[in-house]
């Protein structure tokens, strides 16, 4: 009861006109920087935090919430329209979203992303308010071996969801895993695959690879088609926003995405992109329109976008309850809170209830403001696609390189953009799927580090990997996900064989 009162009190502060204005400025600035490919929410918040220092605590907190959610949101717009993921958590969105945009369904894709983000943000923020203590104890139960099991499950489910050829999917995945080896090994400080180039010691930036493979690879591929490629894209076919069918196909993925994304966001080593992978794999498996996956299935946008936003709220659970920053963004937010004289941690909810509930209320307001601002803009955004192709792709490359230059203006980094762009082009020409490369780069190092941590803690005893109940459950799920489709396929083949036998009779 006290909780609800405090929340209402917080909302009362947040909806004062001046605070609404701060929220508006926050989401606008956040979206503006967030759309830059290669500049994710973490950098966005870091760059814009000083802007908030000029305001009073309540106002700055509200603007800050706006920047955070705006930065999260900006990435999905460019993913859908330009096939240029702004940050790693919106890579999956580009897969189906951009196919939809090319088919004249960009409006529906943007809408389901916006509304899905809103729904997920709303539910997850409320869950943050009421479930934080339980979620956090669940998240802390995850040690290295549990994370390793989670990564195994992710590998199995995700790789089953990409592409139609096992060989080409695996080649893409292993290219990604190889790229993941580059850099200093966290556990021993040894340089791997760096060839003495200092810029490689920190490994390959996920966003650099994603921007290069998606935006630059795609631009090269379209250009190489010459006059055979269609001159312009028809931006809108049918209704601009979502039709009844889109709604019917979107609402369940929104909810499922929220349920997946929130706890994964709360895990100290989770990361928003892991939630989007799981959501995509799940939606593909559950969908009645499997054939549309890879060609623009709305579920593949709705689920991952919801998961992405839910995990953004999930990140705040350990931050507010334990003072535990579980992502780069959260670490910067922690610095921001300290600026307001707030020490996040177990004592925060009791020592500073007004500010905590003010923040939660601000997040709700920022979330609402984003959807109100963005839905009317959908029509304008999709018009971007009517820009003549030579200007459009020139602009895409301007933006793609801008993000990388802004994050790290080094010749080596820009060189990587070029090399990986050419690689993305070559993979497209030979019909290799692109996404598994990025997935391998993200999941590979995580899986390796967690495995080695688990074994170091146990001093080399391998049995610890299966003796924890959570790890055992996750590994069983992974085994089922691997074996069940094989059995089904074998059975299906059996049916086909009997049918063929019957035909030949």
């Amino acid at each position, binding site marked *: 009861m006290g909780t609800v009162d405090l929340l209402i009190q917080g909302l009362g502060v947040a909806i004062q006109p001046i605070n609404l204005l701060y929220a508006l400025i926050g989401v606008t*600035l956040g979206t*503006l*920087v967030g759309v*830059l490919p290669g*500049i994710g929410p973490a950098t966005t918040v870091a*760059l*814009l935090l*000083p802007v908030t220092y000029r305001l009073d605590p309540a106002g700055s907190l509200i603007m800050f919430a706006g920047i955070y959610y705006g930065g999260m949101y900006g990435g999905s717009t460019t993913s859908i329209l330009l096939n240029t993921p702004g940050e790693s958590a919106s890579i999956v969105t580009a897969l189906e979203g951009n196919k939809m945009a090319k088919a004249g369904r960009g409006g529906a894709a943007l809408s389901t992303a916006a509304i899905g983000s809103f729904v997920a943000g709303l539910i997850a923020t409320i869950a943050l308010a009421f479930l934080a203590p339980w979620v956090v104890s669940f998240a802390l139960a995850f040690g290295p071996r549990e994370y390793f099991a989670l990564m195994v499950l992710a590998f199995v489910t995700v790789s089953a969801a990409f592409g*139609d*050829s096992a*060989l080409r999917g*695996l*080649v893409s995945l*292993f290219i990604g*895993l*190889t790229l993941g*080896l580059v850099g200093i*090994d966290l*556990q*021993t400080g*040894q340089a*791997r*695959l760096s060839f003495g180039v200092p810029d490689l010691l920190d490994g390959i930036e996920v966003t650099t690879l994603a921007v290069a493979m998606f935006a*630059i690879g795609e*631009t*090269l591929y379209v*250009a*190489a*088609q*010459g006059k*055979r490629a269609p001159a312009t894209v028809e931006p809108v076919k049918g209704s601009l926003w979502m039709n009844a069918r889109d709604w019917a196909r979107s609402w369940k993925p929104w909810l499922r995405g929220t349920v997946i994304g929130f706890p994964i966001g709360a895990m100290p080593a989770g990361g928003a992109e892991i939630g989007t992978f799981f959501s995509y794999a799940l939606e593909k498996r559950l969908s009645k329109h499997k054939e549309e996956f890879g060609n623009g299935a709305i579920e593949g946008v709705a689920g991952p976008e919801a998961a992405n936003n839910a995990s953004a709220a999930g990140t705040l659970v350990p931050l507010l309850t334990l003072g535990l920053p579980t992502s780069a963004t959260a670490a910067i937010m922690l610095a921001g809170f300290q600026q307001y004289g707030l020490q996040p941690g177990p004592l925060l909810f009791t020592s500073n209830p007004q500010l905590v509930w003010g923040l939660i209320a601000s997040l709700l307001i920022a979330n609402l403001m984003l959807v109100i601002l963005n839905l009317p803009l959908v029509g304008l955004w999709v018009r971007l696609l009517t820009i003549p*192709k*030579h*200007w459009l*792709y*020139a*602009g895409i*490359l*301007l933006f793609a*390189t*801008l993000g990388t*230059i*802004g994050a790290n*203006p080094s*010749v080596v980094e*820009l*060189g990587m*953009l*070029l090399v990986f762009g*050419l690689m993305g*082009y070559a993979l497209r*020409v*030979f*019909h290799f799927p692109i996404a598994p490369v990025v997935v391998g780069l993200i999941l590979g190092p995580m899986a*390796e580090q967690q495995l*080695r*941590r688990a*074994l*170091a803690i146990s001093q*080399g005893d391998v049995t610890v990997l299966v003796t924890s109940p959570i790890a055992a459950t996750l590994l069983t799920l992974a085994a089922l996900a691997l074996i069940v489709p094989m059995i089904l396929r074998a059975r299906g083949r059996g049916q086909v064989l009997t049918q063929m036998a019957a035909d030949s009779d």
Partner: protein
Amino acid sequence: MTTEPLHRNPERRPDRAALVIAAVLLVLAGIVAWDASRIGGVVQYARIGPQTVPYAIAICLAGLGLWTIVEALRGDFPEREPQEAMPVLWIVAGLLVQLLTIRFIGFSIATGVLFALVARAFGERRFWISIPFGIVLSIAVWVIFARGLSLTLPHGPLEDALMNLLRPRTTA
């Protein structure tokens, strides 16, 4: 599943490009294994050290390379669209110009040239239009992101001149 033809065309010859891919994978496997062999041993309680996973990946890469050879010889790779080389070269040139010159001539000119060369790849031949347009666009972007939002974007003579114009006279 649907793209794999059930009955392979027996007249299809070994796929040369696919064999090149296989060779690339085998070379990559060799590089990864060679690099792993140079990593010094550090006492590790985990038993699997910094070289274990690279070796595993190298073995898998080699296996995938062999699998690719088999598929290439059987002509299992899907049909490819013919590619035009010139547009690709224009774009690569644009990116090269940008990365090599940006530190000296600043963000706006370097990116403006990239912009024009990409437009050229898509058939826009009028450089006297596309280069100025690209530079003006890049300056606008530079002002918003570098000055307004304190992103680090390299500046050159053009940006410096612009900032001098905008600078209040009193501080001189």
